[in-house]
């Protein structure tokens, strides 16, 4: 039943198509979107179990065998991240539906939000599953085009300006991506990843380095790697909370996944990758220090997002099975926890009417539920035991300490960046949750997308956030089997052979 691997892409596209058809009934759109994402979660879970038990699930579209045809490949890494991403997308959708009912009323129809949301999910799924470079490019375009719409619809001049930065930077990186794909094709006459993993080895070292760096830059821009991160803290905080949470949870991690996939398959290293170690150090420190300087809650979270991309880059830089295992686990945990924090940020803003930390106060007394919902993901992000963040970070540190002097030194930076994260989040806690309660700030623009400064928050918004908190707690509870599986995923990535055999068959090796 290999068709299963195509369902995470086709289901949301079908859902989006039907949602456009029934665009006059917002109730039908909501039900469609929820059922689509719900069934995607089930499919992703089945894919993960199958990929772990009996190797990657591969489907050759149209029956054309790779490397000629297009293949969708769900191996352990792809299926795990797909499952976590769809879970997050489902929870964020629940939050968004509830918020839209509260703000616009039960009957307010929007013909664009749900279809666009589903198309974005389709793009994310395709990015995880695609087995060739060009399909990867297409999936990024699907994802980004949908994200342009979500970021800039029904907003003010200021958000359009922030959106412009995002659109231009994304288009630029897409252009570079396409150029890189064309260069790879010119050099090797194939774009199939499994096929490339053999042919790139035969290229001259200089050309290989150029191609590898092209992909580092392309995915570095999209994953907000320092020094290519500048667009993220300017654009993400301006969107409505559910959209920001979705972007923060999924988009950068998809790019990180693409970076891992291309670098491990195409440009393997025998020893730790020095350039990536430096980039990881810069990303961790710039992000964490930037977060300390912020007064805007969403900007602070955006900088923390950048900082923790560095943790994952560190796992990739170590370039052994344990490092990649840690990076995979870290990515899975990071997707949930960042989305949760941005949703909580949305709840806080909704209650206090502001994103400025110095105008909040006393939330722990006025809204204990909010305090709990913030505290758990905050501790998880900082990586305190016994949370999921600790488990993932421990794996990264062990991998770094066992891989020589350079990685060990960077492991120390990981610990420093974790403390800086904890410090930044403590600052949020002290400013927003402790102290005396401050009056609610009036909504500066009552007619725009964001409704703030209202105590009218329906319970499903809390429930959706709590669901995400539960997912990150579940990652901590099942840390044993999960890290065993990411360990196997890391070994697959380093060995490269399982992927090749699964896609191309083992006829000639």
């Amino acid at each position, binding site marked *: 039943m290999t068709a299963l691997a195509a369902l995470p892409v086709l289901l949301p596209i079908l859902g989006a198509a039907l949602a*456009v058809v029934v665009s006059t009934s917002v109730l039908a759109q909501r039900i469609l979107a929820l059922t689509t994402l719900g069934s995607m979660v089930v499919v992703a879970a089945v894919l993960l179990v199958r990929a772990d038990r009996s190797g990657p699930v591969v489907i050759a579209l149209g029956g054309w065998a790779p490397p000629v045809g297009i293949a969708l490949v769900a191996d352990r890494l792809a299926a795990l991240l797909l499952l976590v991403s769809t879970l997050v997308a489902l929870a964020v959708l629940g939050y968004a539906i509830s918020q839209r009912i509260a703000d616009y009323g039960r009957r307010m129809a929007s013909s664009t939000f749900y279809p666009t949301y589903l198309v974005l999910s389709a793009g994310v799924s395709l990015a995880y599953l695609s087995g060739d470079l060009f399909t990867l490019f297409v999936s990024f375009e699907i994802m980004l085009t949908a994200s342009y719409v979500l970021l800039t619809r029904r907003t003010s001049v200021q958000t359009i300006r922030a959106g412009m930065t995002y659109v231009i930077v994304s288009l630029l990186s897409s252009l570079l991506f396409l150029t890189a794909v064309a260069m790879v094709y010119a050099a090797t006459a194939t774009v199939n990843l499994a096929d490339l993993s053999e042919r790139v080895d035969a290229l001259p070292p200089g050309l290989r380095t150029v191609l590898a760096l092209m992909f580092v830059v392309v995915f570095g821009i999209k994953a907000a790697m320092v020094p290519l991160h500048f667009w993220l803290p300017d654009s993400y905080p301006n969107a409505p909370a559910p959209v920001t949470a979705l972007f923060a949870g999924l988009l950068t991690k998809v790019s990180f996944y693409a970076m891992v996939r291309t670098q491990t398959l195409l440009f393997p290293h025998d020893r730790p990758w020095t350039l990536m170690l430096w980039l990881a150090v810069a990303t961790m420190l710039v992000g964490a220090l930037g977060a300390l300087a912020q007064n805007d809650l969403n900007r602070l979270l955006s900088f923390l997002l950048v900082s923790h991309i560095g943790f994952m880059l560190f796992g990739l830089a170590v370039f052994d099975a344990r490092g990649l295992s840690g990076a995979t686990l870290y990515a899975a945990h990071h997707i949930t926890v960042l989305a949760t924090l941005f949703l909580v940020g949305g709840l806080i803003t909704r209650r206090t009417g502001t994103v400025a930390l110095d105008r909040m106060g006393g939330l722990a007394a006025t809204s204990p539920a909010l305090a709990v919902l913030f505290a758990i993901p905050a501790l998880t992000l900082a990586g305190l035991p016994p949370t999921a963040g600790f488990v993932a970070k421990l794996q990264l540190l062990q991998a770094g300490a066992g891989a020589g002097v350079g990685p060990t030194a960077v492991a120390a930076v990981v610990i420093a960046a974790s403390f800086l994260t904890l410090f930044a989040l403590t600052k949020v806690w002290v400013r927003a949750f402790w102290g005396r309660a401050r009056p609610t700030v009036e909504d500066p623009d009552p007619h725009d997308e964001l409704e703030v400064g209202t105590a009218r928050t329906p319970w499903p918004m809390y429930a959706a956030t709590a669901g995400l908190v539960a997912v990150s707690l579940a990652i901590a509870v099942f840390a044993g089997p999960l890290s065993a599986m990411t360990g196997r995923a890391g070994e697959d990535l380093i060995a490269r052979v399982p992927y090749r055999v699964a896609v191309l068959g083992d006829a000639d090796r």
Partner: protein
Amino acid sequence: MNPLTSSPDGDAAAPQPGEREQTPFESWDRPRSPWLLPGRCRTPRRRTLLLEMVTRGLFPTILVFSIYLLCAGHYGPGGGFSAGLVAGLAFVLRYLAGGSTDPGALVPIRPPVLMGLGLAIAVGTALAPVVAGEPVLSSTKLAVPLPGSGELEVVTSVFLDVGVYLLIVGVVLDLLRALGSGIERDMRAAGEEA
């Protein structure tokens, strides 16, 4: 009152605001029956009769040609995308000739529904082979017997093309609705002459 459907010397010939007096000469070559089906026509001075005349003849021809491209696409140049664009261009031509006539009103279906249906048909075509145990997106040839004249060979991927065709036509119509008549409406609302 529609100036095109009324008699040439009826009260529809009353000058539009900002229009000079209508001379008999201008009313002679005004068509007696609607060539297009405009809901609201531009003022007579802003019309291009030649274009309207040509469009009247071209519109059905272009649509038939787009169907030809759709069917020929599997073996020759064409396919759902280009056929859809050609059909969409027929509507663009009609919009250019008809002015603020809303092309959306000419198609008895809302453009988003057309897009959604097209996309759903395409995805359905992709998933249909799974029922028969074939890989996703695979296609096969169906032989449809025609009475008296042998059989017609249909490649199933034509259904994907039909989906793409509807999608593209829907997109073009939606663009016309948003960027054409939508902007004209906004300009009228702002007091400018569209």
